[in-house]
């Protein structure tokens, strides 16, 4: 035995025993800790465990298609991928963010902003950080599934709109839901959802949107799917069928190309909108995903106001088109005899001021009565009519005939225009009415402003003898409102005869747009933006030149189609606006003739070879690469047609 070992075999038994107690106490202490977690808080931790492993991914419902009146597709969808960011694991998130940013080509700050914006959403719900994943993004995500369990691809459906702004304002566009809209929707909408932001997309958003489905899967700690738990299919949105006639729209768009203005074509008997154009128009495809702030700013600040739907939002003086309202008021009020005659020397003096007729430079109209005053659009005649009727009577009839208030079309943002009256001026401007103003209003100038849609409805309604239908774009619109302001048969006859004369009579202001064999009627309008003397001072600057109007319809009595055309700075209604209406009405009758020949079948083959088809292709362009090769015009597979062949 070594020398260092002592003989002392007395062990510190007390202290050893103390250590035993310490061991027992320590064990008890730890067991209490486990008891707390496993018994008292087990539900809480159980939920956390479930949240860890179960991932809910949305299945996005495709939006309904938008079809024309013959069920041709105008707006459809194409499949795309959106990049989802999973935020459940803060550690992974922090570590992986630089790689995510690099791989997707976005900055870390941008991602962090989006995470911040989605703070209120539960962490287990992923957020969309890149709405349109490129091929490279998809490859990046797939190849990093194992080491970067932060990203997930979500199949989404993107809107494909016609190109070059075809029907753009009426259709509107979709965009990412705003925070306000999310709040307003309750829990229905989530950040990253797409909703209609304007036009029909907004008006019928509920119908078009559908209900998203949901997929619940079990994942492991690196985000790999291990098991499927639940699969709720998405319910696609419903299609909407419009009253728009694709063929007429094509003609209208082509006729307005490069111009600034609007066209509305209506069936006044039903209120169905057959075509609606507003130019210039933006390409809604560029905001179908996410519009860069700069581009959005540009669109908003553009002096040509491309975002304005001029058909329902341009409020401008109607010019001589208003003379139809004046004529109706004159005959209906019976304040002035029907054979009232005025001598037009080219100008006249009212209340100490000289008012010119539009033919002032070439002399005057001579002796004119109502019919010729409309056909030749004599201002002097209507100055006198206006003076005799007085502003309140003009205002009353204008209002009854549909001006100065909304038509009730199924589009957001319609403007109401303005029909001035003594009462209005006192109330709004706190000034008395000057009699001279009545003279201006009598020829559609002054404070009087109307929208193209209002004029279409008003002229169509007068030609129908005082029946005004609510304009609408939805084919199976329920409860279309109808207003009647019964106009005497004689009045209707006189006024429509005069409007027939405008287009068909020698010397009529729209004689150049006559259509052989069609009772094409209408009224031109040329509205000054500043006085003719003022115009001489500023020279021929385009922004001050006259707006051209034409509201035409056919046939003369009980019209089937009325077309309102506005060409801003178009100078003359007869040359700039009337041909647009003529082209549309011509096309309408061509189609009608074809329909009548083959009563129940529509031969689309004809259209495929026609100019309008080429125009349609030009407007729509080739389908985007990611989409199924489906043109806006489906092949002729409708029942009648296939039976025919």
């Amino acid at each position, binding site marked *: *035995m*070594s020398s*260092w*070992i*002592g003989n*002392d*075999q007395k*062990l*510190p*038994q007390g*202290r*050893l025993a103390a*250590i*035993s107690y310490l*061991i*027992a106490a*320590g*064990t008890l202490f*730890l*067991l209490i*800790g*486990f*008891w*707390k*977690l*496993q*018994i008292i*808080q*087990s539900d*809480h*931790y*159980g939920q*956390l*465990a*479930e949240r*860890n*492993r179960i991932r809910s991914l949305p299945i996005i419902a495709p939006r309904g298609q938008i079809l024309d009146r013959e069920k041709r597709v105008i707006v459809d969808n194409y499949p795309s991928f959106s990049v989802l960011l999973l935020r459940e*694991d*803060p*550690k992974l*998130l*922090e570590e992986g963010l630089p790689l995510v940013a690099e791989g997707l080509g976005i900055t870390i700050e941008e991602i962090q902003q989006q995470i911040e914006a989605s703070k209120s959403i539960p962490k287990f719900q992923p957020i969309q950080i890149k709405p349109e994943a490129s091929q490279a993004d998809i490859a990046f995500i797939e190849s990093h599934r194992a080491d970067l369990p932060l990203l997930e691809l979500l199949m989404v459906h993107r809107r494909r709109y016609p190109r070059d702004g075809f029907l753009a304002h009426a259709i509107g566009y979709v965009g990412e839901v705003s925070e306000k809209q999310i709040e307003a929707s309750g829990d229905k909408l989530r950040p990253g959802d797409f909703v209609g932001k304007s036009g029909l997309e907004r008006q019928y958003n509920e119908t078009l949107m559908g209900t998203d489905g949901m997929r619940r899967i*079990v*994942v*492991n*700690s*690196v985000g790999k799917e*291990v098991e499927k738990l639940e699969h709720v299919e998405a319910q696609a949105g419903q299609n909407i069928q419009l009253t728009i006639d694709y063929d007429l729209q094509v003609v209208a768009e082509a006729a307005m190309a490069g111009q600034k203005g609007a066209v509305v074509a209506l069936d006044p008997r039903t209120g169905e909108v057959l075509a609606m154009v507003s130019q210039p128009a933006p390409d809604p495809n560029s905001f179908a995903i996410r519009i860069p702030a700069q581009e959005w700013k540009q669109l908003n600040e553009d002096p040509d106001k491309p975002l304005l739907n001029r058909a329902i939002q341009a409020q401008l003086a109607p010019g001589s088109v208003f003379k139809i309202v004046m004529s109706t008021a004159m005959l209906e009020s019976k304040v002035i005899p029907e054979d009232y005659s005025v001598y037009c020397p080219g100008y006249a003096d009212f209340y100490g001021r000289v008012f010119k007729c539009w033919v002032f430079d070439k002399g005057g109209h001579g002796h004119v009565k109502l019919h010729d005053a409309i056909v030749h659009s004599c201002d002097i005649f209507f100055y006198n009519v206006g003076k005799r009727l007085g502003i309140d009577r003009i205002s009353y009839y204008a209002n009854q005939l549909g001006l100065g208030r909304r038509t009730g079309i199924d589009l957001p943002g319609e403007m109401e225009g303005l029909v001035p009256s003594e009462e209005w001026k006192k109330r709004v401007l706190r000034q008395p009415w000057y009699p001279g103003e009545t003279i201006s209003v009598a020829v559609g100038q002054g404070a009087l402003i109307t929208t193209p849609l209002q004029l279409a409805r008003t002229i169509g309604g007068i030609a129908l003898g005082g029946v005004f239908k609510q304009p609408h774009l939805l084919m199976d619109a329920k409860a279309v409102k109808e207003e009647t302001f019964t106009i005497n048969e004689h009045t209707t006859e006189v006024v429509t005869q005069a409007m027939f004369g405008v287009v068909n009579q020698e010397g009529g202001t729209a004689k150049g747009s006559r259509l052989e064999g069609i009772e094409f009627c209408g009224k031109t309008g040329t509205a000054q933006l500043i006085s003719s003397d003022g115009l001489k001072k500023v020279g021929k600057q385009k922004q001050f030149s006259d707006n051209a109007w034409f509201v035409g319809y056919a046939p003369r009595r009980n019209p089937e189609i009325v077309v309102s055309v506005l060409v801003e700075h178009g100078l003359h209604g007869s040359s700039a606006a009337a041909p647009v209406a003529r082209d549309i009405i011509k096309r309408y009758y061509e189609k009608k003739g074809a329909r009548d020949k083959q009563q129940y079948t529509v031969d689309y083959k004809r259209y495929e070879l026609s100019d309008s088809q080429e125009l349609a292709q030009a407007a729509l362009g080739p389908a985007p690469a990611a989409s199924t090769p489906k043109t806006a015009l489906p092949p002729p597979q409708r029942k009648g047609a296939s039976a025919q062949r």
Partner: protein
Amino acid sequence: MREGTHLRDFDWALLLIVLAICSLGIVEIYSATQSAPPSSRLAGLHWKQLWWVLIGVACMLALSRIDYHRVLDQAPLLYLVGLAGLVLVLLIGETKYGSRSWIEIGGRTLQVSELVKLIIIVVLARFYSEVRTDRLSLLDMAKAGALVGLPVGLILLQPDFGTAVMFLPIAVVGAFLSGIQWKHMVAFALIAALLLPVGWYFLKPYQKERINTFLRPEENLQGAGYQTQQAKIAVGSGGFWGKGIGKGTQNQGGFIPVRWSDFILAALAEETGFIGVLVTLLLYMFLLLRLVQNAQGAKDRSGMYIVMGVAAVLGVHVFVNVGMMIGYVPVTGIPLPLMSYGGSSTLFVFMALGLVMNVRLKRFVN
């Protein structure tokens, strides 16, 4: 059998407890790694652990047959060998988990500090039995401190803070049993409390983060807090009966960090619930109490110091590791002895238990 050592004197109860704990460990290692692909380094880990246990039992039997007094005789030499090993590992060691504490021997890596732990138990047992007093003086305490301080300093250089801390209980328990005076104990406690802020200054940023996380877990669910949180979720969601072996979602989904090693108890707690934890912790308690019992029956003080040194190391490992699972202790790389997968730590425990057996077998020998 040599004179005086009989098979019936062997501590069969202790071995039974140890093998029971090892079995639980192997089952849970199997459960934690069963879904790993065959090519993974985790595949068949339970088989490897079984081999380590078998090798460990063999080492234990071998060590139990060498008279511990002979081992104590060689204490100074062993100490030098240990220090040399630690220096060597600093020079040519391999870095794993951020520490240069592994050395390659015959294609396998060995954690040198585990072996050194065993040597320090022996060295301190020798030192304290040479003191031969019931009133430990400050000078002796300083000497004991220096003996432990040298290897601890070398381990801190690796750096492996967790392992280094595990050396202290050997010295503390030894001092306690050598009759440290109460006034000294109080004084040391006070000094330690005062030095804590100073020590804070020397900690590495990740260590500070871990301690911050430990003190305020809700503020930091990233980084270190994540591991504790995932372990707590596993433990808590296990409930009373557990989710069943192989059915723990935290375990099978890989949410528990190093679930086959340091966090194996979290995996076990999830799959076997409070019942499983109760059984496991009671087994550890019986193991430690049995060690104290062996110390009480030791033939002399040196034997007692060896057994209690082993008990101190095992006890602190168990309490620190178990405390980690429920957020009572900050996350440090401390395995659960006998359960966590790991060759070095398993071998260390069995060799340490071999010394304990040795002491027991000598208790009636004069």
